[in-house]
C-alpha cells in the first residue's frame, strides 16, 4: 500500500461524498429516495467504465484506486440504501420494492453498460 494510492482514495472518496450530499439537497423534499438511487446507478455506470479501462489501458494504480474505490465508492452507498429501505417501508410497501429492485437491477445494468462501452473502445472484442 503506497501513500499516494491511499491519498488518491481519500481524495476521491471526499469528492464523491460531497457530490452525493449535493445530490441529496436537490431532492430534500422528496418522499422517495431518488437521490441515493441516482447516485448508486450513475456511480455503478462509472465504476463499470473504470473497470473496463483498467483492463484495456495502462492506468496507474493510484488513478484506478482513486477513481474506482475512492470516487465511485464514495459517491455510491449501501448504508443509506439500508436506511432508505427501512424508512420507505414504513410509508409504502410498493415503493420499497421499486427502490430495491430499481437500485439493484439498475445498478447492475448500468455497470454492464459502462463496462462494455469502454471495453469495446479499448479495442477488445466482447
Amino acid at each position, binding site marked *: 500500500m503506497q501513500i499516494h494510492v491511499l491519498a488518491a482514495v481519500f481524495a476521491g472518496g471526499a469528492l464523491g461524498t460531497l457530490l452525493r450530499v449535493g445530490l441529496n439537497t436537490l431532492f430534500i423534499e422528496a418522499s422517495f429516495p431518488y437521490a441515493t438511487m441516482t447516485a448508486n446507478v450513475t456511480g455503478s455506470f462509472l*465504476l463499470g467504465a473504470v473497470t473496463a479501462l483498467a483492463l484495456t489501458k495502462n492506468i496507474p494504480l493510484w488513478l484506478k484506486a482513486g477513481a474506482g474505490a475512492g470516487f465511485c465508492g464514495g459517491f455510491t452507498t*449501501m448504508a443509506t440504501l439500508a*436506511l432508505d429501505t427501512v424508512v420507505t417501508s414504513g410509508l409504502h410497501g410498493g415503493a420499497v420494492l421499486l427502490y430495491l429492485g430499481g437500485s439493484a437491477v439498475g445498478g447492475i445494468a448500468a455497470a*454492464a453498460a459502462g463496462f462494455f462501452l469502454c471495453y469495446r473502445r479499448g479495442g477488445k472484442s466482447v
Partner: protein
Amino acid sequence: MMILLLALAGGAGALLRYVLGIVLSGWTKDAAIPAPMLIVNTAGSYGLGLFCGLYLQMVPVIQPEDPVYLIAGVGFFGAFTTFSTFSVETFQLLRQKSWMPALWYSTLTIIGAVLGFLLGYASAAF
C-alpha cells in the same frame, strides 16, 4: 467548515473501506462470492443503524440537514459502504455465467445491509 468536515468524513470512510477490502480479500481468497465488500457493506449498515439509534436518544428526530447526521451518517458511513462495487462484482459474476454466486451475492448484500441496519438500530437500546 461543513464542506471540509464532510470531505474529511467521506475520505476517511473510503480510505478505511479500501484498506479493509485489501485485508479481507487476503482472508477470503477461496470464497465463491466476493466476500470483502459484503462484509464491509453489512458492517457499515450496522454502524449507521447503531449511530441512528444512539443519536435518536439525544435528539427527538433526525432531520436530513442535521450536521451531526450529515457528517457521521451520510459522510462517514455513506462513503465507508459502497454500491458501485456491488454492481460491478455482480455483473462480473453474471459475465462469467456464475449464476448462483451472483444470486447469492446480490441477495446476501441487500439482506445483510437491511438486517445489519435494523440490528444496529436495535442494539442502540442496550
